């Protein structure tokens, strides 16, 4: 038994055993707790904090960040990062709005498809460079972040597309409500984002392709030796992240109406923060889309609430986010170390049971 077999066996065994407190659960639960505390604190200092107008605004704000965070989570799970999705949102939002302005009669479905397609193409550029040209994702996406934005600025030439240029159905979309719970209106855009999150979560959890993302992220070398087509998996991750960013671009047009060339800049940082705070491990191979969604909720809550707190300036948001990311990563590393130690004990004891002549003690093999 070689070291790579052991490495691959670890996640499989821990999944089969289903510890009631797996790291993902711990992280998601602690985030829910943080969210609860935030809501309590904010409602204590802000009068009429949970008004229905506030909830509506919050749901719209969550929808864009959540879609982006889902894409970022998928990329981070493969042990990569995508800094370009903010720029992709900008390109997709601007081009879609521009096209709609001159083609008012375009069906909504085609508008969405156009936005997604733009994102997919840009994601493909990232994916090819990372997977096939073997340039680290941080470099590729730092570069394409600048390139995409620069191409957009040259294309737009400083023009701004405003609400008046857009078809009415799109302008009405943010206020469209699917159903109401008591006083609270559940916005259609939020439900769209929620559906995406749930579908992606199921795909990642239960399909072969989804599991491959985790395999490639947790141990690229072992995944390759196990015969996974790692390059394709990586390419797919960047294409999906691009497509989701394209869709977020569509939501961006709907939410703001007025689109200029700076649309979406900085959103990549919010998405990364959401994913990491939501428990997606930056070491690859672990994390959930639902966790990233919770992270997006937290960011939107901070964003929308700090403005209403008189005692604190709204400029605290990013400083708080930076600290939260570090805390999340610290928690991640601490949990990871405990889990690895436990998995190692289990493998050793099981290997001992199965055959006394086993040499599959990972501790010894790493230094061999």
């Amino acid at each position, binding site marked *: 038994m070689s070291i790579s077999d052991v490495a691959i066996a670890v996640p499989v065994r821990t999944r089969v055993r289903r510890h009631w407190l797996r790291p993902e659960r711990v992280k998601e639960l602690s985030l829910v707790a943080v969210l609860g505390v935030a809501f309590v604190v904010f409602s204590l200092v802000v009068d009429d904090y949970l008004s229905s107008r506030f909830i509506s605004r919050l749901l719209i704000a969550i929808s864009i960040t959540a879609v982006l965070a889902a894409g970022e989570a998928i990329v981070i799970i493969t042990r990569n990062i995508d800094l370009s999705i903010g720029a992709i949102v900008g390109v997709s939002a601007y081009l879609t709005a521009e096209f709609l302005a001159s083609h008012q009669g375009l069906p909504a479905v085609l508008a969405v498809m156009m936005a997604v397609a733009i994102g997919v193409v840009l994601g493909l550029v990232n994916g090819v460079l990372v997977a096939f040209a073997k*340039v*680290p994702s941080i*470099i590729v996406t730092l*570069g394409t972040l600048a390139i995409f934005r620069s191409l957009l600025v040259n294309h737009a030439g400083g023009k701004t597309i405003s609400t008046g240029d857009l078809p009415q159905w799109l302008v009405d979309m943010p206020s469209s409500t699917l159903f109401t719970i008591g006083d609270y209106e559940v916005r259609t855009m939020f439900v769209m984002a929620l559906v995406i999150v749930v579908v992606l979560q199921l795909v990642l959890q239960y399909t072969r392709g989804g599991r491959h993302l985790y395999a490639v992220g947790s141990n690229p*070398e072992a995944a390759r030796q196990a015969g996974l087509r790692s390059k394709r998996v990586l390419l797919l991750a960047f294409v999906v992240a691009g497509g989701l960013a394209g869709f977020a671009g569509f939501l961006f047009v709907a939410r703001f109406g007025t689109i200029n060339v700076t649309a979406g800049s900085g959103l990549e940082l919010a998405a990364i923060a959401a994913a990491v705070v939501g428990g997606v491990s930056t070491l690859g191979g672990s994390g959930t889309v639902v966790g990233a969604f919770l992270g997006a909720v937290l960011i939107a809550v901070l964003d929308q609430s700090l403005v209403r707190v008189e005692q604190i*300036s709204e*400029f605290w948001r*990013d400083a708080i986010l930076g600290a939260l990311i*570090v805390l999340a990563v610290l928690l991640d590393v601490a949990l990871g170390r405990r889990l690895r130690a436990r998995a190692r004990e289990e493998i050793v004891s099981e290997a001992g049971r199965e055959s006394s002549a086993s040499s599959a003690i990972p501790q010894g093999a790493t230094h061999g």
Partner: protein
Amino acid sequence: MGEPSESSSERTMQSGEWAWKNTWNLLLGAVLLATVIFNVTQSSGYLSVDNFVNLFELHIEKVIVVVTMTFVIIAGEIDLSVAAVMAWSAAVLAALHENGVPLAAAIVVALAASGVVGLIHGFLIARVGLPSLVVTLAGLIGWRGAARVLVEDRSIGDFPGWFDRLGQQDLIGPLPLAVVIFIVLFAVGWVVLDRTATGRVLYVIGDNADVARYSAVNVVRIRFGLFLASSLAAGLAGVLFAARLGTVRGDLATGFELEIITIVLLGGVSIFGGSGRMSGVALAVLIVLNLRNGFGLANVGGNTQTGVIGAILIGSVLARNAIDRLHGRVRSPRSRPPGSAVTASTEPAGI
């Protein structure tokens, strides 16, 4: 089992390294020559000393940080927070000045504030073992946020005359203070990297941190020092930037990390750590500065320039990969992502 293959691979690596370094610096030299020739044909006063100094002055804050970034990347790490730390130290300076603190004291505190950043990053990366990519990405968000908390959406200026003069006036001959600081820093960096034990150790850590550790190198201390130096350089650059501009805003230096990292990688420093030379980085600094100048002469806007810098960033790593493959020393990037201190040591040792 490993010994014979190890020594032979070492030999090919050395000859590959030699050939590759020459290929790369020759390429850089050719590109530099081309940009200079283009600039000379565009503008008659191009080859004057004043213009050359001016070239440096316009981007001096970035090239100061290039020196420490070279060290960081050679050691196999990355620091994405530098631009945010520039804004943070400038914001501390501005906020103190606004509240009536004497500027000299404010400068000292601003530099100390960037030192604190370095200590925090160093602690998290070197001691706790978090990946530098994530810590400094959090830093990119967080320190920019901290700067915003201090200056909000205001623009703080009105510094005493001596501070403005410090940023703009010539100090030695035609050279302003910032350029003098850069030259000194670059020279010291070159000597440290090429001629000292610490320099050699950086390469070893970047190449294989485990080997360094087993060779009794204090990896923790070196990494700690790296991020402290990186933040201090960024803090210094932030103060100099404030002096040159005369005002401080929350979005000061936004996006500078792109150009800083681009120059280092264009200079032939491997993003995977363990190789690169100051001579290459010096050529890359000259290329990017001349390119910027040439774009200005040809009326290419700042936005397009940023796009080109992004393309150069990706292009340098692509070209390096291609040359590496030519010399038969392919290293899989994903086996060692930059700044992955934690994963690097848990990898299979090569079966």
